[in-house]
């Protein structure tokens, strides 16, 4: 396990990042043209009402004052009330966050299941036809936009073959696995394409390494050579990539959640931006910032578990 001081140092690093994100999102949101008052009331608020709504939301205060209020509330755990959802931001986020996390982890699991063996095959038979075919197929996953692949999957597998429900979210765990199969698959195609590229490259590099030759020369069984020596070393670099893809998946499922009608935070963020719901945008962004930082920290921990050379740093 990495030293405690290393962990604490990394945790402390999240704080300045968090503060930077706070300042950054506060300004960015207020630079967006239009504001919540205009976006509300189906744009039917009269000019007088708009002024009134701005006063109620405290938007008529000078920026520094608004920022102080925002910082004071956020640090005391109060993310304010969502204007669009008319409910506390924390409540709204907590109700929809599990869906996105479930979808992201499900997608990454599928991606690893898809990419792992095929990357292995491509590496073992590098630069043969199998290798090129595998990379070609994954290339489709990497370049086809999710909103198209998603719709094709829905049309064929759900609407016509009825193997899966058409979008939506289940109630039980199994129900969710069934409901979220297609969206997870359409996201997994993209993530697995990245994993294959990276895993194949590192596998090729490891298979030529001297210690693998030495392991074979020691007469170890192929299984031990593959798992203990080859895979473990190849995984070290892929773990960082996996952490990065989980990180941006947390927010990258935005289009997928819209196409597959999944009540996740990705879609909520898009709706919040289109409604200029300042508290909700700020709350969601800070949540993403914390979650992604934690995922990156976990990746570092896993990586230092795998690779002792990183432990002492």
């Amino acid at each position: 396990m990495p030293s405690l001081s290393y962990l604490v140092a990394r945790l402390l690093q999240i704080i300045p990042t968090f503060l930077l994100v706070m300042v950054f999102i506060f300004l960015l949101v207020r630079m967006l043209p239009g504001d919540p008052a205009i976006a509300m009331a189906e744009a039917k608020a009269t000019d007088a009402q708009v002024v009134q709504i701005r006063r109620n939301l405290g938007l008529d205060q000078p920026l520094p004052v608004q920022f102080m209020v925002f910082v004071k509330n956020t640090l005391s755990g109060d993310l304010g009330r969502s204007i669009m959802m008319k409910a506390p931001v924390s409540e709204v986020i907590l109700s929809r966050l599990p869906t996105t996390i479930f979808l992201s982890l499900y997608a990454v699991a599928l991606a690893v299941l898809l990419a792992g063996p095929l990357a292995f095959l491509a590496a073992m038979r590098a630069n043969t036809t199998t290798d090129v075919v595998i990379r070609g197929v994954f290339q489709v996953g990497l370049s086809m936009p999710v909103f198209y692949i998603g719709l094709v999957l829905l049309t064929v597998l759900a609407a016509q073959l009825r193997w899966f429900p058409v979008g939506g979210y289940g109630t039980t765990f199994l129900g969710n696995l069934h409901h979220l199969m297609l969206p997870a698959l359409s996201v997994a195609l993209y993530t697995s394409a990245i994993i294959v590229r990276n895993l194949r490259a590192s596998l090729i590099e490891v298979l030529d390494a001297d210690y693998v030759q030495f392991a074979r020369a020691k007469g170890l069984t192929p299984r031990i050579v593959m798992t203990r020596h080859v895979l473990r070393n190849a995984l070290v670099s892929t773990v960082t990539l996996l952490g990065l893809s989980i990180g941006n998946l947390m927010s990258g499922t935005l289009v997928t959640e819209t196409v597959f009608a999944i009540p996740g935070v990705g879609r909520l963020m898009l709706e919040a931006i289109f409604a200029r719901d300042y508290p909700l945008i700020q709350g969601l962004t800070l949540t993403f910032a914390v979650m992604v930082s934690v995922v990156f920290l976990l990746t570092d921990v896993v990586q230092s578990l795998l690779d002792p050379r990183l432990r002492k740093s």
Partner: protein
Amino acid sequence: MSALGHTSQRRPNRLLAFLGRAFARPSFVIGFAIIACSILLALCPQVFAPYDPLAFDMTAIQQPPSLAHPFGTDNFGRDVLSRVIWAYRVDMQMALLATIFALTIGVTAGAFVGYYGGIADTIFGRCVDAIITFPFLVLVIAIVAVLGPGLVNMYIAITMVNWVYYARLTRAEIMTQKANDYAAAGRVLGFSDRRIIFRHLLPNAISPVIVYWMTDMALAILLGSSLGYLGLGAQPPAAEWGVLISEGRNFLLTAWWMSLMPGVAIVLTGLGFSLLGDALADLLRAKGR
């Protein structure tokens, strides 16, 4: 001195040798061919496109692929093949302009920070973390909303976010290269920091960046098409693959070619970039950096 100067004399034939080795690899050749054709189509679409991509033809609405219209027509009777070809101009431009500035800014920033380290490095680290933890697409959407729609603003938005990934990569590479002896040798010989960084450290650190750039260009097209789908990317009536696909989404069963054909174009271009990227990665690694 000779150890340092030596590399530059042999540079010309080293490049030829490199290209020789590169063209020996099938994946490089295929990738290069695809991208070369894409650039050609992007430069002079009017030569290849059989029809005017914007001309309505109310009599030929949503006709399936035929000899007259190899890729069929869309809901305005416009020829899909011509629109896909004209879209090369927008999408290849997108692939280049959305990444080249991010690369230059990112590499310069990464190089300096990687080389000098210290306070600059920690501040840089936190800024990079802040941007990277930010949801990428959301940040681009917000910036496009602030700057206003249009391709130029989209490039600015993507560059403002994308440079971070290049900076991180370059910083890591420079840090490893910095440990090598020839960097110390440069200092001993009194080279200016700028000279050491740009004439010696960067040439060795740039290869993974180039490889990443290849895949990034493919991703830029994908990002552009997602923005197109959300209506924040290319403005109508200009043809862009993402916009074409989302225009065809409503007619998936009745006019499948409207979405499929631009989709094929995106995949093909993406394949070209990633084959180039893979081949370069293998070649540069084989050089035994």
